[in-house]
């Protein structure tokens, strides 16, 4: 009997200890063109989803914000402007290539002084308890090996009253939209990935990992179990993406 613990990597089952490494390969491969691909894949709509996340964050001057899986720094850029000179933003990503791209981009855009960078795993956040006013994880949670552990870790480092925002692909609410979306994800997306980054496999993984990610209600329940209160979600673009919000009591 094989009692080795496994988890999903897209539609494949892989040993738990392998997932992080394989996800890392995907993001090393796409890092340099990640933003271009996001724009292409979502027709620019990912900017609107992120914009809504910023609005829902309630972040203001002086706050401490942790942007997990912050990748190329889209959210961190806005947060750094919002928190001002007295606040602090930490852009965290498990992947050195993504973090490097993010750091260069933010520096090029004149963001410095109130931003720090940390290469870390969402499951084991290297920060003291009760540190942050707000934590965001945008399009990152589905790549984490143990999502429950990551949610508990985020809950720990949030200040009481602080909020967690999870922006992630979710389940489209209409059947028709769901069918169109499936065709798009499994046929068009890998093709575009091949054209732009010459890497169809990575984009096939992205599409598969979205299907394996918990739906809206399941993720809300997971947040409740991790100790968050007043959890809620907002569907965007017909449920293709959902923003989950929870408060640390």
């Amino acid at each position: 009997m094989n009692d080795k613990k496994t988890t999903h990597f897209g539609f494949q089952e892989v040993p738990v200890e392998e997932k992080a490494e394989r996800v890392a390969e995907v993001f090393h491969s796409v890092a340099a063109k990640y933003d271009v691909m996001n724009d292409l894949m979502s027709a620019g709509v990912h900017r609107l989803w992120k914009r809504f996340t910023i609005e829902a964050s309630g972040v203001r001057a002086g706050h401490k914000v942790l942007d997990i899986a912050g990748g190329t720094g889209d959210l961190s850029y806005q947060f750094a402007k919002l928190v001002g000179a007295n606040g602090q933003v930490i852009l965290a990503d498990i992947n050195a290539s993504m973090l490097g791209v993010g750091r260069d981009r933010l520096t090029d855009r004149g963001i410095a002084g109130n931003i720090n960078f940390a290469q870390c795993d969402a499951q084991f956040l290297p920060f003291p308890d009760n540190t942050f006013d707000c934590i965001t994880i945008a399009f990152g949670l589905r790549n984490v090996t143990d999502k429950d552990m990551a949610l508990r870790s985020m809950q720990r480092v949030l200040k009481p009253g602080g909020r967690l925002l999870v922006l992630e692909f979710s389940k489209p609410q209409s059947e028709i939209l769901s069918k169109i979306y499936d065709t798009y994800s499994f046929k068009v997306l890998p093709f575009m990935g091949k054209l732009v980054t010459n890497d169809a496999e990575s984009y096939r993984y992205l599409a598969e990992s979205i299907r394996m990610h918990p739906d809206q209600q399941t993720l809300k329940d997971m947040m409740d179990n991790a100790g968050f209160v007043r959890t809620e979600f907002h569907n965007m673009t017909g449920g293709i993406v959902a923003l989950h919000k929870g408060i640390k009591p």
Partner: protein
Amino acid sequence: MANTLIIAALASAEKMLNAALRYDPATRIGLAQLEGKIIALQITTPGINIFIMPMDDELRLMGIWDGDVDTRISGSLLALAQLAQTEIHNLKDSGVTVMGDLSLLADMQRLVKNLDVDWEEMLSQFTGDIIGHQAAQLIRAKFGWAKDRAKSAQRLTSEFLTEELKTLPGKPELDDFYRQVDELRLAVDRAAARVETIINRKNH
């Protein structure tokens, strides 16, 4: 208000405003002084909330805001449009209410009045999305929101702020104030000359 289209309309309106601001450094400097203030524009029909926040030297338009608001303006889209369009000199029966810091409203009005923005185009992004093409046509026709009306709206808003709310001094009051400043300056000059003469006389 997790509606992607409304977020898109807000993003686009914000882009138009900030594009106009890019060519207007004086207004940008003025905006920087209002940083951290929040104006809530509450359109009751159709229900849209827009929160206007000056940040750095730009304007941010947001659909949601959890914190305090400095000034809140509310009314139906038509009432707000009507206020801009017709010769209304006070808010009674206009369907528009203003609460909070009126001087902020005055500052903002003063700053954005010279911005070269196609307001009609900006508005149509909201109306077009929410109440459909025909209604948008109707509202646009009613608005006649283009430049000439915008000018009269600016004049009316300025009259309203000076005459009705008394948040800004009127032109005659300002002229009188400037005259008094001039007189004071002349009196100070005369006094200075007299003191100088006395000192000179004493020294000789």
